[in-house]
């Protein structure tokens, strides 16, 4: 790279940074936006927030219906409708740029596009994504071809038709906000009325059909809602933003709850919040386009949800997995020590003695019991020592009184499950240990009681001795 080129790179980088930094607003500006003092800001923030709420609700159904990208295909499919409406209006002598006419055109071909997707799914073996891709590209191509003709019409008003319909958020007027509010209301009412049906449609359309629900009709109602939200949103905030609002809040909400009703509400909340915040941010910093800021705010919320959402977030899932594997490792250690004590000095475990402790076991003996590495075993012993379950005595480790109590319960659960498997699942006694090993850790007290009842070994404090149902082999319990 030449010096001149490097200089250009540096200059442009500075220009970019300057542009980003030179927009620090005054406190008064921030306050004015936050209190919605400006008429224009108020309209934009309220309008987009309503849109976000409506899109969030519809989007959550779309996500679960595995049709997240339908909004993408649909919004592209509105283009030929807009061009046709323009041509038709001009042909009848009206102004082609009348908004209601264009919106009707957009709705008609948008709905046709959705209908085409549904028909392709029903009558061909094309998959969802292919049907969407076909509709998106062919309808949009037709729109582009029609616009090529519109541009040759001798009306002069055709210029900028595309940007006229694929509007700009900042220029939203009060009638737009009202229209969005009305559409949002329709969406909310229809979703509330058909909530149960939509839920069934999302989770198990075959079952819904089997139960006699008109699945195709319900699908059409749901898709009509998507068409309404998309067309209204296209005109108000633009193509990409509508697609984003239909997908991102719902995908983010999925991390927060496994319950559909809660997820829908959270999705609406995220949609509304990112719109309000994004629009306000763009009002404070006029150099940031509001549509793009709304998408970026929604995306930030999505990333946070994906990381920390309690239902399916990455961090909570990792923590849960860690907790489980720790619990499993701890229980393996306790059971191994208990069983080894049982084999060597069973007298230590007799319940009449006041202070029961386990037999003294060296690390080497323990490590032969299971496929533990020395490091693993040592760290496990250490944490167990911190919890007062094992203690160092001389050159070996032994269970403390508390450890024996816990180990007895763990061992008992294991043996109960083994007995159950041998009795009812016809698992050979020589193989039962492995199978029981996988399940014993997740047996709660309720399940244990159930097992005891089935096996006729009831014991209120779950502390009774239970002999192993199979021969104990040194090195493999």
């Amino acid at each position: 790279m030449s010096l001149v080129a490097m200089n250009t790179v540096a200059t442009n980088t500075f220009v970019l940074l300057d542009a980003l930094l030179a927009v620090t607003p005054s406190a008064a500006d921030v306050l004015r936006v936050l209190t919605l003092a400006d008429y224009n800001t108020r309209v934009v923030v309220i309008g987009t927030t309503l849109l976000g709420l409506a899109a969030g609700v519809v989007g959550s159904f779309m996500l679960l219906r595995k049709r997240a990208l339908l909004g993408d295909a649909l919004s592209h499919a509105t283009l030929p409708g807009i061009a046709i409406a323009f041509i038709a209006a001009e042909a009848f002598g009206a102004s082609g740029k009348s908004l209601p006419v264009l919106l009707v055109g957009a709705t008609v071909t948008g709905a046709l596009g959705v209908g085409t997707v549904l028909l392709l799914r029903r009558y061909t073996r094309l998959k969802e994504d292919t049907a969407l891709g076909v509709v998106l590209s062919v309808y949009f191509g037709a729109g582009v071809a029609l616009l090529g003709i519109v541009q040759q019409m001798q009306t002069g008003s055709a210029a900028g038709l595309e940007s006229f319909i694929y509007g700009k958020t900042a220029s939203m007027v009060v009638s737009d906000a009202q229209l969005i509010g009305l559409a949002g209301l329709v969406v909310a009412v229809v979703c509330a009325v058909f909530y149960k049906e939509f839920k069934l449609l999302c989770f198990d359309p075959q079952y819904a059909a089997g139960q006699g629900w008109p699945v195709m009709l319900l699908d059409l109602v749901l898709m009509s809602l998507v068409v309404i939200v998309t067309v209204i949103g296209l005109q108000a905030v633009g193509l990409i933003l509508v697609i984003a609002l239909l997908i991102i809040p719902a995908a983010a909400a999925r991390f927060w709850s496994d319950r559909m009703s809660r997820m829908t509400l959270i999705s609406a909340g995220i949609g509304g919040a990112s719109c309000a915040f994004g629009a306000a941010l763009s009002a404070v910093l006029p150099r940031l386009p509001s549509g793009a800021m709304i998408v970026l705010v929604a995306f930030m919320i999505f990333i946070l949800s994906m990381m920390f959402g309690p239902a399916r977030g990455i961090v909570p899932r990792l923590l849960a997995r860690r907790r489980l594997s720790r619990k499993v490792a701890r229980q393996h250690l306790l059971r191994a020590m208990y069983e080894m004590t049982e084999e060597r000095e069973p007298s230590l475990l007799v319940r009449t003695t006041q202070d029961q402790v386990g037999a003294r076991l060296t690390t080497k003996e323990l490590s032969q019991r299971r496929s533990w590495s020395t490091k693993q075993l040592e760290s496990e012993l250490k944490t167990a020592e911190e919890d007062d379950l094992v203690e160092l005595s001389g050159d070996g480790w032994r269970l403390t009184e508390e450890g024996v109590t816990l180990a007895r319960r763990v061992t008992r659960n294991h043996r109960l499950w083994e007995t159950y498997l041998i009795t009812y699942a016809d698992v050979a006694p020589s193989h039962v240990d492995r199978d029981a090993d996988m399940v014993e850790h997740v047996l709660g007290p309720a399940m244990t009681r159930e097992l005891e009842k089935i096996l006729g070994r009831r014991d209120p404090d779950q502390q009774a001795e239970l002999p192993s149902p199979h021969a104990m082999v040194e090195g493999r319990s």
Partner: protein
Amino acid sequence: MTTVAILDWSMLDTWIVIAGMLCALSCALLGNFLVLRRMSMMGDAISHAVLPGLAVAFLLTGSRASLPMFIGAAVVGIMTAFFTEWVRGAGKVDEGASMGVVFTALFALGLVLIVQAADTVDLDPGCVLYGAIELTPLDTVILGTTTLGTIEVPRAVVMLSCVLLLNAVVVLLFYKELKLSSFDPALATALGINARLMHYMLMTLVAVTTVAAFESVGSILVVAMLVVPAAAAHLLTDRLPAMIWISLLLAVGAAVLGHMGAIAVPAVFGYSSTSTAGMMAVTLGAMLVCTVLFGPRDGLLVRVVRRFKPSLRPRAAEH
């Protein structure tokens, strides 16, 4: 009148059709694997998502030269595939939704960057970054001189030829691996094929093709050529080689007929030609509709006939 419009065919039209055919072939070839992998929307996602790559390349070099722009776009295009895969895998989000989340966010980021740059420079995403196929013959490169004169070829044709060559070579070399990992990634992995590597290789090809093609012929044609020929071919056959050949044939046919339609159809109504890319997409749509209705394998017409003539039903043992 229609015939007159078509008879005005010139060298310009030939170059436009050649560019369209090259784009059609490179896209349709990859499209078969995208359709089988249920990733048909990837072309659309990438063509939106590359905006920040273009913006950053422009801001850093300060020029609208093709190469930095191309590299920036291709890098972000590949990143789109990576991010989508990450959100899908790590977040367990449905494929379509993860694609939607990633490409809209990247597009928004690109918009913000471009608005920042708009004060100092002239960068319009609408007309600079997305090419138009009608303009391809005007931007030429000189390949060499012979005794007959200089050989001048449109830049788009050179670029798309390279992309087609790349796609063809990679698909030929890794045909078995691509095929197996498209149909059964688990089996492919068990047989020692790196299905993940195949996935990213295909995504890289798609990103490069998408960027190269939309820069020269426009994004709508890319998306259409990636999905529709393969979709129609998928309805006609169960065999992958046949599907690929049919899709290539349909794509080339649509490129030729589309440009003729762009000249001839508006002429019927008294207008001069319209968007070639748009008409190529419409032609593809018409081809797909014909396949759905009249396809010999399981077209709607055939199915209706079979309902009344059970003897024509395919025997179950055939497959």
